[in-house]
């Protein structure tokens, strides 16, 4: 898994590439938590390069959503690929996470 963090106006975009699994999910959660703790509570996860997630990745996403919303922000997903979206749907995450076709739309959704 590779991560890159890019400010985009009043939003921070975290690009996630590769596989989020039991070995890598902690790094994702740490990176996202650092952003929330730094006051960057409007987050977009760019999932265009995300090939795979297991329940470990879902834990990281839900943990971040809870933290961000407590501080008045949110974590929103962009460009989720079909196999990953299927896992989100199976797990009931599509009803609690907002997701958009691309980073531009996800970023604009924060207004």
């Amino acid at each position: 898994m590779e991560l890159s963090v890019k400010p985009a106006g009043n939003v921070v975009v975290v690009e996630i590439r590769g596989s989020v699994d039991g070995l890598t999910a902690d790094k994702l959660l740490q990176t996202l938590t650092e952003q929330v703790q730094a006051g960057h509570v409007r987050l977009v996860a760019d999932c265009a390069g995300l090939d795979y997630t297991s329940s470990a990745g879902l834990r990281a996403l839900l943990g971040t959503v809870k933290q961000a919303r407590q501080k008045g922000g949110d974590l929103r997903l962009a460009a989720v690929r079909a196999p990953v979206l299927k896992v989100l749907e199976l797990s009931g995450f599509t009803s609690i996470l907002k997701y958009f076709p691309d980073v531009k739309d996800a970023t604009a959704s924060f207004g």
Partner: protein
Amino acid sequence: MAAGMDSALAIEHVASLENLPRFMSFIDDACKRVGADEDTAYALRLAIEEVCINLIHYGYKGMAPGPIRVSFRQRGDRITIKIHDHARPFDPAMAPQPDLTSDAEARPIGGLGWYLVKQSVDELDYQSDPARGNVLTLTKHNAQSRQQVTGRKRAS
């Protein structure tokens, strides 16, 4: 290897997080070898990760980590994966149903692993024996293989 042919492979490593990628790569490679479609390969990668993570984090908790042996077999359109371990027995049927409907604030973090395993395969069987250990058998129908087999039957 042509779809529909018999194929059996196996791997064994100690139950540790650092070995997790080895189990996942084994399934990735085996799926490629038998020509599994992408959905099947993703589902089986997910299933094996969730099972191994449970064994690493909970099954062998409080004891020296023992082995996890994973075997992969394709017969016709059926892929069968067996996971053999000597960890504390846990029947997946006893795993509680996760909360899939609460809003984000009330949703518990975690508890999805066994649910995703069950969603990823067509059949699941668990046997535990004090002497021989535990064997979890996961079976999935390989849609692409099934199509190819059907096509071959039509051609003949």
